[in-house]
């Protein structure tokens, strides 16, 4: 469906997008994740043919965006960072204009207009000037514009920015519904959003692809081992000996727990091994009762922090990044 090969964008000396390679299959929802300035919007602008690439190629539906732009663009609906709306048009006029330039056959227009306005819930503001609409409504009009003509590929650059929580949920549902028939690419720096909606995540940092995989598989790419957190009653030495018999345990750390006489133990394992049963029997045999055991599941935040680690510039970004995520 979408094939990106060796995509490069340079602004003078600055490399905004650095040899990106990926493919998106029909019906996939791809989440495009990265800190601010990672090259998300630049990449999307190149995918949609708004700006040119310095090198590489983008093929949409078999048509090269550079060689056959008109054919390729027919298959794309695009919502850029700022919704490209004309303030002095009403919502209805605007959507009709978009139908015009996207060459929607005349017979389908009335039905399509009604359907799209209902889906994006702009019907009640259809005859108001876009100038007078709130940011959330403008965003929805922008989204309506992107699905005009029901293109096969829908590319959305931070679609939920400026929406209230209720609208965010509605837009997410809409995106999920769209994904049944369309291929969708969404960019965001809000992690919860991506994990909610997408089946595949692509993390980019400083224009480079860090990882691309399904949401479930992402933790596998981590070097960090999986860890267990236990609350155990007993002496440190006793527990250490008991756990010494369990294979594949790499790291043990002890801290006093909140309750007296209990210890909080974290266990790091090699090769992401699941050692919960072994740990249980070992400690039971040593008569060190387990008061609590949790698997330290990594959230996308952790994964992201991990993936972009070792890069001071990115680290700073990441700070903001998690804060943004939490605001959600």
């Amino acid at each position: 469906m979408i094939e990106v090969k060796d995509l490069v964008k340079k602004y003078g000396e600055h490399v905004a997008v650095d040899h990106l390679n990926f493919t998106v299959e029909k019906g996939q929802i791809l989440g495009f994740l990265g800190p601010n300035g990672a090259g998300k919007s630049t990449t999307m602008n190149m995918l949609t043919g708004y700006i040119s690439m310095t090198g590489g190629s983008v093929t949409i539906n078999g048509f090269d965006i550079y060689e056959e732009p008109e054919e390729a663009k027919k298959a794309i609906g695009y919502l850029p960072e700022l919704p490209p709306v004309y303030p002095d048009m009403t919502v209805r006029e605007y959507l009709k204009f978009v139908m015009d330039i996207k060459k929607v056959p005349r017979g389908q227009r009335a039905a399509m207009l009604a359907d799209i306005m209902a889906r994006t819930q702009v019907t009640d503001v259809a005859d108001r000037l876009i100038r007078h609409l709130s940011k959330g409504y403008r965003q929805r009009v922008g989204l309506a514009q992107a699905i005009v003509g029901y293109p096969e590929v829908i590319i959305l650059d931070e679609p939920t920015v400026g929406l209230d929580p209720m609208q965010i949920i509605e837009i997410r549902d809409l995106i999920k519904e769209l994904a049944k028939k369309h291929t969708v690419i969404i960019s965001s720096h809000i992690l919860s959003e991506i994990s909610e909606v997408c089946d595949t995540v692509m993390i980019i940092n400083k224009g480079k692809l860090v990882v691309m995989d399904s949401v479930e598989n992402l933790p596998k790419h981590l070097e960090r081992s999986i860890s267990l957190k236990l609350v155990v009653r007993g002496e440190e030495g006793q527990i250490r000996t008991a756990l010494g018999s369990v294979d594949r345990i790499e790291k043990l750390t002890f801290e006093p727990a909140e309750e007296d006489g209990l210890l909080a133990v974290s266990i790091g394992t090699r090769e992401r091994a699941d050692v919960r049963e072994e740990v249980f029997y070992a400690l039971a045999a040593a008569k060190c009762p387990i008061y609590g055991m949790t698997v330290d599941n990594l959230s996308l935040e952790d994964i992201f922090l991990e993936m972009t680690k070792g890069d001071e510039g990115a680290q700073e970004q990441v700070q903001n990044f998690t804060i943004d995520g939490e605001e959600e």
Partner: protein
Amino acid sequence: MLAIYKKEMRTYFTSIVGYLFLAFFLALIGLYFYAQNLYSGSPNFGYALGGVMMFFILLVPMVTMRIMAEENKQKTDQLLYTSPISVTRIILGKYFSILSMFGIVMLVTCVYPPVMAQYGTINFKQSYACILAFFLMGAAYMAIGLFISALTESQAFAAIMTFVVVIISVFASQIAVLLPTDAKTAWLIFSVLLLGIAGISYVVMHNITVSILIAFLMELALFILYQAKPEALDGAVLNVFGWFSISDRFTDFVYGEFAVSAVVYYVSYCVLFVFLTIQAVKKRRWS
């Protein structure tokens, strides 16, 4: 192309600018018609149009400043350039909408010669040739305005630049006459012009090396010419200013001559600047 054209026409008529342009333009033509033809009793409609000509300085920026700059500013260009229409069609749609606004004025103007005929004999052929030439002249100025608007995000900047360019063009021949005709002055003036061209090339291409190279090569060529054959530069300023003087060409029509060369000149201007606009837009997305 039709979609863009319709959208632009609607924008003109939903904002005050379109009405202001039409009203202002028609009022001026009416005023000059009254002064030159009715009050002074001249049967030559070209005089009235010749008087209105200098108001292109204001009228052209008025109708062209918004046309591209506003799209760049509102980021609606992202919608246009990612939709399945070529840049050429987008620009042509916009240019034709400008021409239509001007065309409306010219259509109304076509009423004047028959009105004049009520009071005496007039030369219809010449009157309508004047109106046609006036339209083509305006079209050439408006192509320049379109081009300037495509270079910027600011309507104000587009308006001021267009204003300056049109003013230079309107008064080019008058200015040229005042300048000394010797070779040294010519050399200096051309050097300044070359700098201007290099400056424009930088605005269009955003490549300082190329612009400096262009300036350097042209200046070198000019200097060699100045050293080797200074007599070639005698009076050259007048000629060169003459080439750029869009308004001068109109005078032929006023004196009753149908100058085919002038028509070709105007049409080439339009084609050249529409072409440059298309290139500038493509280049902008390329840099």
